[in-house]
């Protein structure tokens, strides 16, 4: 192929398409060996057997011998077993936290994108700040202020809203949901901000010229045009929330607030015999969020295609 112009090259005279393939090769190989192969390892472990003596999972790499019995186990635990409440709780937390993110995040994104005027840059910088603060540190910050002798209790008691200090960190649903909202809301606001910022001001002016009041113009023009942004933000935050285990661990640590991610990390990291079960539960979680992942994947692909065009 070298030296000749093939129809597949983009057509600069004297170009060797092999150079481009060669440049892409290390990265592609990396992703095959350390991204695709690991997923095969999840499948192989979940479809494998348990060593009868050491009680450790033996992966089965040949699909011919795959044994899906552990999936029956996992589904049994979800429908009518101990994993059922955890699954429902996870969904409840994610839905509640996402709803709060939308309610709180929309006005903020809207204001900064459309109404902040000359302060826009400063506001944007402040909205971006949490991105560069480690998630665990942001949770640690709440562990500090929510402690029994922490600032939240003393503030609430000063205003008489609380008679005696409350232990917020002892298995309260509201604390975990607060943590999820606090942790993920910046990732919701940013894509929404970008979507709102892209809306053509002329369209809004046209709506107002044609007699729509500010509320009507918002409901009929801005809101529909920002739907993509809301959807993108929602997908971006719900995906990691479904796999979260550190937020409930840090802000509660009680079995009452356990999420599905806690079970996965326990199965995989804390016991050798449950490795197969952990792998199967990971696959179930992936299938559960597959719709979200596909949507996100397609929108990223579309964005990069548009950038290329």
């Amino acid at each position, binding site marked *: 192929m070298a030296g000749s112009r093939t129809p*597949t090259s983009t057509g600069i005279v004297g170009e060797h398409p092999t*150079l481009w393939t060669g440049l892409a090769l*290390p990265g592609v190989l990396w992703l095959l060996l*350390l991204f695709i192969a690991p997923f095969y390892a999840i499948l192989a472990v979940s479809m494998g057997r348990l060593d009868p003596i050491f009680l450790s999972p033996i*992966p089965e790499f040949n699909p011919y011998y795959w044994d899906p019995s552990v999936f029956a186990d996992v589904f049994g635990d979800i429908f009518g077993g101990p994993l059922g409440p955890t699954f429902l709780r996870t969904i409840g937390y994610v839905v509640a936290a996402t709803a709060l993110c939308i309610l709180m995040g929309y006005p903020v994104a809207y*204001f900064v994108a459309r109404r902040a005027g000359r302060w826009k840059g400063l*506001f944007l910088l*402040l909205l971006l700040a949490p991105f560069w603060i480690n998630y665990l*540190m942001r949770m640690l910050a709440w562990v500090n202020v929510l402690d029994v002798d922490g600032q939240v209790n003393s503030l609430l008691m000063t205003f008489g809203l609380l008679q005696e200090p409350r232990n917020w960190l002892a298995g309260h649903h509201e604390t975990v949901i607060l943590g999820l909202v606090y942790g993920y809301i910046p990732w919701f606001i940013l894509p929404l901000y970008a979507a709102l910022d892209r809306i053509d001001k002329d369209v809004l002016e046209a709506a107002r010229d044609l007699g729509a009041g500010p509320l009507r113009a918002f409901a009929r023009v801005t809101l529909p045009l920002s739907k993509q942004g809301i959807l993108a933000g929602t997908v971006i935050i719900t995906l990691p929330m479904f796999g979260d285990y550190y937020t409930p661990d840090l802000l509660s640590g009680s079995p009452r607030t356990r999420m599905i991610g806690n079970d996965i990390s326990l199965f995989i990291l804390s016991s050798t015999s449950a490795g197969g079960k952990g792998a199967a539960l990971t696959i179930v979680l992936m299938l559960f969020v597959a719709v979200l992942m596909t949507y996100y994947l397609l929108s990223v692909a579309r964005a990069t295609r548009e950038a290329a065009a």
Partner: protein
Amino acid sequence: MSVDTTAAARVPAPGRSLVVRLRGWLANPWNRPRLLVVITLGYIVWSLTPVLIAVQFSFNAGRSRSVWQGFSLRWYTQDPDLSVLHDPSLWLALIQSLRLAALTMLVATPIGVALAIGLARWRGRGAKPANFLMLFPLVTPEIVMGVALFLVFAHMYDFVPFGTWAQFLGHMTFSISFVVIIVRGRLFAIGRQYEEAAMDLGASQLEALRRVLLPMLAPAIFAAFAIVFALSIDDFVISQFLAAGQSSVTIPVRLYSTARLAPSPALNALASLMLFATLVAVTLAGLSLRLFRRRDPTAAGGVESLSRWEF
């Protein structure tokens, strides 16, 4: 605009209750959208205050994380046993985090830049699937990637020891795709005409790449270095799944394991040091973009482009 007269006409009569006046002030449609200002400022205060308090108490002279006892560097350097400097479990976590981030940054960026250029130019049969494959690490929940990497190192690549090596390979895997996203935006903006001109003037393909394209990509490459550093130092899930014992504990892993069991201002000091490291990396990325923007008036502002991943 008759803002002044209408606003004056709307000044509430004295004696009306505070609540009514406050409502009138918030809902006044002729001025700035005050309700939105209040919500936005409230959000920003809420989003940053706990972290600022955490940083403040890393400088506390006493052991408390809620009662201020005066400024000191006790938890950073001075305390002979418990400060970050003198507690090996703390500074080893700092070193592990920095080491992993530096290593990942140095290896992931070249591979990612090459992949971005290759994918943007390569039109062969594998190009489409490769472009799609590259996007997967960006959309996979971290816990799924953590489990996948844990199992692959436990059962397939058992020659890779858990700990630093496995963590490095894991961090590389999620970083490469980010480099591609950062670099390819710039790549599309540059187009092909400069390379074409260089080759028309007698440069070989490799020379055109090395002497024309790479210098033009420099700001994006520099931004990629800094962002990979920040992503790696920020990572918790992959680091935890692939850790092996004390020697591979990173700062986020340490925060996770001690925040509830044995919190102390030294932990806040450790977290603050990580925050400063990340801020330095991001500031450098921002500055390199600015430097480049000065030469290219068509590009968007620095913060603006950072917020949209356009480099």
